[in-house]
């Protein structure tokens, strides 16, 4: 299968600070906005990207100022791929309990991975569990 025609690529290493998330988010979302991706697509990418980056900074790198997160992104006219990698020991996404279980639905946390999976077309973790790949197909205008 041939590669999509990438029209924009992004590769940044940012410090493990919650404050570092905003500029990355703004840059990627602005690209979608400039290319007239739908409001719903923007919401979906915004949500998944924020959850992935907050997880990387807080759970992956545990806010360690000596560690970084690595964000790569590439975009074709109708496809978006984002990878968020941290320098932590990783985790097993299959071991994350279902936050909608009756006994957990009122727990304040634990919904990030579920939201990523629901709002993106494909979400994959590497074997170590310290890198997540988010993929989104552009919603056609008439949907």
């Amino acid at each position: 299968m041939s590669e999509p025609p990438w029209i924009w690529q992004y590769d940044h290493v940012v410090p493990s600070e919650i404050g570092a998330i905003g500029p990355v988010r703004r840059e990627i979302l602005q690209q979608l906005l400039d290319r007239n991706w739908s409001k719903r697509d923007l919401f979906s990418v915004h949500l998944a990207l924020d959850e992935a980056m907050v997880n990387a900074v807080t759970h992956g790198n545990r806010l360690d100022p000596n560690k970084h997160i690595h964000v790569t992104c590439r975009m074709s006219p109708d496809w978006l791929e984002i990878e968020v990698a941290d320098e932590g020991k990783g985790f097993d996404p299959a071991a994350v309990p279902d936050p909608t279980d009756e006994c957990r639905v009122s727990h304040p946390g634990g919904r990030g991975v579920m939201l990523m999976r629901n709002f993106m077309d494909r979400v994959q973790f590497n074997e170590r569990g310290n890198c997540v790949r988010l993929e989104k197909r552009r919603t056609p205008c008439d949907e």
Partner: protein
Amino acid sequence: MAEYRRLEVNEVGDVTVVRFRDQKILDDLNIQELGRELARLVEVENRARLLLNFASVEFLSSAALGKLITLDKKVKAAGGTLRLCCIQPEIFEVFVITKLNRVFDIKENEADALAAF
């Protein structure tokens, strides 16, 4: 009445109607402050009949959902009632996916929500 940086607080009858100053509730420091201000409504000002109006809110992270869940527990512990209204479709979908639409009493508009108290 106390000053709120993240909230607009008004009385409608005996219900406290709360609106959000931020269109996007996502910055961690803002979410922490939001959580403290919501808690203050119940724990310091003893407001037990609360309506959160989300009309101005365009984005909500899962960390913000956590603050709403914590508020719901505080209100229930105080014997009060918490309702939500005017949630935009994308955000409502987040509530449905996480099944939080079953935890919270969510009304389509403010009039319906007030009438239900």
